[in-house]
């Protein structure tokens, strides 16, 4: 009996240390307002110096990122950017090339304001917290989120690598490629 009760005690003590992720179903009246606030972002032409992207609370919740993934197909982002973000009539979101910046705030601004060459504005149409969830998911497409947060499965037949398993792209230094010399005989 001794070892058994010891085991039970150990399990109880160990599980007490586990933290259950809190799912925020109702993000409050502020975050539920229609997204319209436009954050000023610095968009520079040409190669910007690589800055480590800041993060948001939404990027620390696997639930929020999974919701972003669901909305990505519900709001048909997938129709223009491809199911895994591989790109179609809209640019790929899974690579290291960013036209308008890769930080959460810049992606937020892209979704809310729209962008000139065919990215529709979602501001005034979707609640603020959903844009944050979408932005968090967009960043998971290029491996910017930890694998404990990024989604691991799809409701549809997976055609692309799970977000969780993606290698992290480094926006800004994608041009550093070794130059290949043709071999001379």
């Amino acid at each position, binding site marked *: 009996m001794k070892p058994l009760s010891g085991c039970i005690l150990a399990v109880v003590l160990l599980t007490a240390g586990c933290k259950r992720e809190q*799912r925020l*179903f*109702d*993000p409050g*009246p502020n975050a*539920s*307002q*229609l997204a319209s606030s436009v954050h000023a972002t610095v968009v520079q032409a040409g190669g910007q110096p690589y800055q480590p992207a800041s993060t948001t609370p939404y990027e620390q919740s696997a639930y929020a990122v999974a919701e972003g993934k*669901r909305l990505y197909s*519900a*709001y048909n982002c997938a129709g223009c950017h491809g199911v895994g973000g591989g790109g179609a009539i809209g640019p790929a979101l899974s690579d290291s090339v960013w036209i308008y910046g890769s930080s959460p705030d810049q992606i937020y601004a892209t979704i809310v304001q729209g962008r000139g060459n065919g990215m529709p504005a979602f501001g*005034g*149409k*979707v*609640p603020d*917290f*959903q844009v944050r969830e979408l932005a968090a998911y967009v960043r998971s497409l290029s491996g910017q989120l930890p694998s404990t947060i990024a989604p691991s499965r799809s*409701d*549809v*037949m997976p055609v692309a690598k799970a977000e969780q398993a993606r290698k992290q792209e480094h926006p800004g230094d994608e041009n550093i490629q070794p130059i290949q010399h043709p071999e001379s005989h």
Partner: protein
Amino acid sequence: MIALAILIAVPGFGSNQSSLNPVGPMAQRIEHTLALIFFITGAVYLLTMIAVGISVWRNRLVRDDFPPPLQTPPEQDRKAVTAVAGAMGVSVLLLFIMMVASFITSHAIGKENGRAPFEVDVYGHQWWWEVQYPQPEADKMVVTANEIHIPIGSLVRIHGTSTDVIHSFWAPNIHGKRDLLPGYENDFVIQADQPGRWRGQCAEFCGPQHAHMSFLMIAEPMDKFHSWMEAQAGTPPPPSTPQTQHGQQVFLSHACIMCHTIRGTVAGSRVGPDLTHVGSRDTIASGTLPNDPSHLAKWVLNAQQIKPGVRMPPNPMPQQELNDLVAYLESLR
């Protein structure tokens, strides 16, 4: 007889969500099989208990501390072997009877599959049911949610699938459970012979709001069914009062259009239920709330308080706008 009397006397068994109150041929066959299995297993259980009781009674005076004889008389041995072998033979036979009975039931239900005059498409969503009645002309297609109207006495083919996880379609008065699987289409045929409102429920755990995922099978005479279909196929007239006109403006300028369809307006998304005739439904949110202005207002304002985790965000808005929006939704009949 006594068991039957108990079955009938217990409330709930005759209700509108019970497989013991079948209202169609499929459910009837299932109930017959259920009764057969119940009475066979019930009888076996009773006999076993009686046998145990008798042997306990017979040996009630045998004292515990008496060591049992090491060797039983051969005659008693023989008796025991025959008894055990006989009981085993009877068990195998009874199991075989139950197996064949369930084969016959499945076969009889499956046989109807080829001959249903019309089809209803059911899509399971987390956590509601999308219902479509395909028509030869695309603009006559009827799309609704959570309420499936069917004509009585007629075979109806349900063409079921899921858009996310596995759900299970179960209206016990009409048919057994049928799983709705993502990426796979499951066809089965149902029939209801009694008019009524037969309640169904998702029978496969599908997430936090699984328990709030019910539906109504509304079985009605053919003429009533046809007039319902005609009304549903139409586009509602544009709002006529200033209040409902403003309500429409509120609908079109909020997030609603990202998820819902109202035919005749620019709202054409299919993430949530089609609201073209939402005012004609009896319940909202998959049978969770009655469809009246006060419940509708609470739902629209913050569905997360009613079904936490539901795929509809809170929609904070001033009271006046909410009232007009609800008046508009209720006018969509």
